[in-house]
């Protein structure tokens, strides 16, 4: 008798043992705990001179023909539809800033590659004194584009910036 192998029927039953689905809030709860842990780790740093710390400037542009829109003075960028295009935001910080929250709000029909269906993203990062570049893999899935807002926050202080993302018009040869 071969005791080295588990008999197929028992193995079959082991594999058929049910696994109940996780709680409905399982994924957000786990990821929320991660974010909370990250914030806890930064708490001592955040205690220092917040208002002065948030003297963050932002430059959005200088790549891909990004420019100031003459109509309303807003920053704008024109991208081809359905193509991933890097849009680079440059945050300039007067000195090192730790635990800065970056929040992105994307207009309808605009997504970041790898994050389908997400119109809002929020994460934390450390800024170093000087220029800090954030490259966003933007893709216009449909529509004419819209306003992408990026905000930088530290504690209660927050600065928001907007850039107009326009879909490039198809040129007809007719």
């Amino acid at each position, binding site marked *: 008798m071969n005791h080295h192998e*588990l008999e197929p029927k028992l193995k079959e039953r082991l594999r058929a043992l049910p696994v109940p689905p996780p709680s409905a809030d399982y994924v957000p709860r786990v990821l929320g*705990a991660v974010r909370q842990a990250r914030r806890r780790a930064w708490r001592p740093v955040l205690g220092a001179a917040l208002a002065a710390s948030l003297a963050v400037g932002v430059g959005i542009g200088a790549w891909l023909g990004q420019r100031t829109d003459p109509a309303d003075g807003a920053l704008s960028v024109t991208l081809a539809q359905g193509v991933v295009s890097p849009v680079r935001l440059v945050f300039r910080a007067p000195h090192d800033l730790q635990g800065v929250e970056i929040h992105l709000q994307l207009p309808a029909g605009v997504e970041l590659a790898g994050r389908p269906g997400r119109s809002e993203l929020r*994460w934390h*990062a450390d800024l170093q004194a000087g220029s*800090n570049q954030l490259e966003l893999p933007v893709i216009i899935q449909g529509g004419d584009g819209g306003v992408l807002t990026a905000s930088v926050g530290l504690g209660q202080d927050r600065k928001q910036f907007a850039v107009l993302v326009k879909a490039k018009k198809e040129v007809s040869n007719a």
Partner: protein
Amino acid sequence: MTMLFPRSATFDLVLRPHLERLYRLAFRFTGSRGAAEDLVQELCVRLLPRDAELRALEQPGPWLARSLHNLYVDQARRQARYPVDAVDELPEVEDPTPGPDQLTDLQISAERIGAALMELPAEQRAVIAWHDIEGYTLEELAQSHEVPLGTLKSRLHRARAALRVALKAAP
């Protein structure tokens, strides 16, 4: 210029596709939904300082699964206060418990199998979960867990023997 990498967003992005599988594996280990969810959550929080290491992996799944296993075994050891794999290095011996034919004659319910599994020490339950339930080969496990193949074979053999005993004893 400093490259401003969206660290936590990427950390989320790397973790998210694996959470369901990690939960499933954690449930195999713990036998409880709540304990499985807590185990995965604890793992993810503990991995936070290692996000760069995690992001650098081409296939983080096996690394995450091994980390989950290590955390589970560590927790079980702390709770049990005795080494769970003390028998690992013992030589294989003929198993005196009922053999396959006898077992398959039994009408073993899922509940009974689940209960018997939960009676096993953590390390034995884990090796059955990995190999007999989730389908990993011993070679894969030896490589990913960095455990000698012979040790794993011995561990599996004893885990199965213990499962047979537990099944026979179960009401």
